[in-house]
């Protein structure tokens, strides 16, 4: 288990969280290298299908990061995300996949440190959860 290196996918919105990630970089804030970012324009464009696809294919964790509520570049985009993701977690929970493998959080363009913290914490959490059980399951 100790040599388990989680593979994690993160969706970052162009205006806040991706910018926050860039700021973390510019500030040279160190964090674990397990998270792979996909840039989208708004967290509201993250189809829950992506999350379910990724996890069902064995990805160990998925992060969805957007602007803080109220700051969305598209006004209420992140409201949608905030509404959707808990239900995606329900789907995971009821099918027996730990819902903590999906995390939704808000990171503004100014929050490099927050980005670092979110990444570090999530990698730790997923590490605790261990490998995605679906890696082993063959249908």
């Amino acid at each position: 288990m100790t040599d388990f290196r989680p593979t994690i996918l993160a969706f970052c919105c162009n205006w806040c969280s991706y910018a926050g990630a860039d700021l973390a970089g510019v500030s040279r804030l160190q964090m674990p290298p397990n998270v792979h970012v996909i840039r989208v324009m708004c967290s509201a464009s993250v189809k829950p299908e992506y999350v379910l696809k990724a996890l069902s294919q064995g990805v160990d964790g998925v992060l969805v990061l957007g602007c803080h509520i109220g700051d969305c570049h598209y006004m209420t985009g992140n409201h949608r995300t905030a509404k959707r993701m808990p239900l995606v977690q329900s789907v995971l929970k009821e099918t027996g996949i730990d819902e903590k493998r999906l995390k939704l959080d808000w990171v503004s363009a100014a929050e490099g440190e927050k980005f670092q913290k979110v990444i570090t914490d999530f990698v730790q959490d997923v590490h605790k959860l261990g490998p995605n059980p679906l890696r082993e399951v063959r249908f």
Partner: protein
Amino acid sequence: MARIGVFVCHCGHNIAATVNVEEVVEFAKTLPDVVAAEHNLYSCSEEGLGSIKKSIEKNKLDRVVVAACTPRTHEPLFRKTVELAGINKYLFEFVNIREHVSWIHAKEPQSATEKAKMLVAMGVAKAALLEPQKEGESSVIPTAVVIGGGLAGLTAAASLVAQNIDTHLIEREARLGGNLADIDIVAPEFRKSKELLDEMIEELNASPKAHLHLSSKVTEVKGFVGNFEVTTDKAEKIPAGAIIVATGAKEWIPKDEYGYGTVPGVMTQMDLEKRLAKGEKPKQVVFIQCVGSRQPGREYCSRVCCNTSLKNALRILDASPDATVSILHRDIMSYGTASEHMYRRASERGVRFMRYGLDRPAKVSRTQRGAAVKVFDETLDEDIDFDADLVVLATPMVAQNDSREVGKLLKVPLDKFGFFLEAHVKLKPVEFATDGVFVCGAARWPSSVSESMSQGMAAAAKAAIPIRRGKVVIEAITAQSDPDKCAACGNCVMACPYEAIEIVESEGKRYAKVNEAQCKGCGACVAACPNDAMQQRGFTTRQLGAMIDALVKNAMEET
């Protein structure tokens, strides 16, 4: 089969010191559809860009992936480069291995290199599915509409007219000037407001470009940037390319607080303005600041009231130097050098400033001579009594009653106090997320005369941009729906923050149609679509799906 070229940037030491660039290049060569992979010391340098161009010609590339820094700063440069080499600029994909890899994994070169490979694999997978895009354009009606004929609106209109742009000024009152028309002298210059207004109104009256609609209200606004249609209650339909909201604000009228309406001589600033304008010379005046503001329910500072009280205190003393003027305040907000100067002059001239707390407000009672004010002075820590022939309540500016309706008409947001909320205080001042609609003056926030004027000019300047260009370019990240897959469930219509989607019917089939001029490319509709019918250009489900597959394939199957 796509022909992809991958260019990995050293960024001097910034990337290469951590990521094994050569290893990434070798890995890239093994990826599907990759026909060339190189590395540059600085991809963004003349030399780097040149080598990319060369490789495009030599290897007949039709897609380019650059693994370097962040798209948020350098994407335009590389897009331009591939465009010059004859590739549609939307066939370029940026992979961030600096901010997202080398700089944040400096102590783990091995893992950093692995991660860089994954990100490149994901970028390549997406690039293979990229499609050339054409940026849309729509024409712009060379006319502006300004809603509100107060100082900000007049300034904006005058400035547009000065730029020779046809401008319609819509004012609900029969006269122009708004609040300023009721103010005699404006601080801190102590200039007659009338001169200021008349100047602008004459300009407008004189110009054939200005079209004044007095006693008119906006009842409907249709369309989008470049192509609005504004309808008034007089059934005038005004086509416009841009709209400026300058609906202003109004003074808050207290309800029997501080004896207002019951004790004679208790009045608001506006009442005082009228009296002073008539030449009245009060002898004992008490100003009470922050009446109805900076308190639960209306937490904000109205910003103009302190200066107004200072201004009027000085006018009263100018008129009768022996008058006693006191200002009961919670803090004096006389920001800016000129205003700070007024504050100093006022104290030199004997104005008594007394600080009270929100928890112990002043009490106003009637006496046979007029009014008496009792207040607990926080500094002296005791109750103080005043006699006053005038008690002036400095109340805040509040939003117009109908500001929410106006917001709805224009589909622009307001804050909880009913003031209009601009897109971003620093990045997009006086703009809304909705292109082509702008805001200035007290409609946005209580503002002084100078602020209203500068905002009016700012709004006019921004509104003039699309009108002067004559067209608006639409970045090709807009959404498109596939009528064959669409089930017309309406989720996307409800998800769209810009009302850019509607359900249409053709040949008996109902489906969602995106108005790309209105679409801002947020992709909310894509996620809302229960099928795969809604797609965002440059972020299609196939492209993002391929990125996930690439990660799974490379990161998991290898381990």
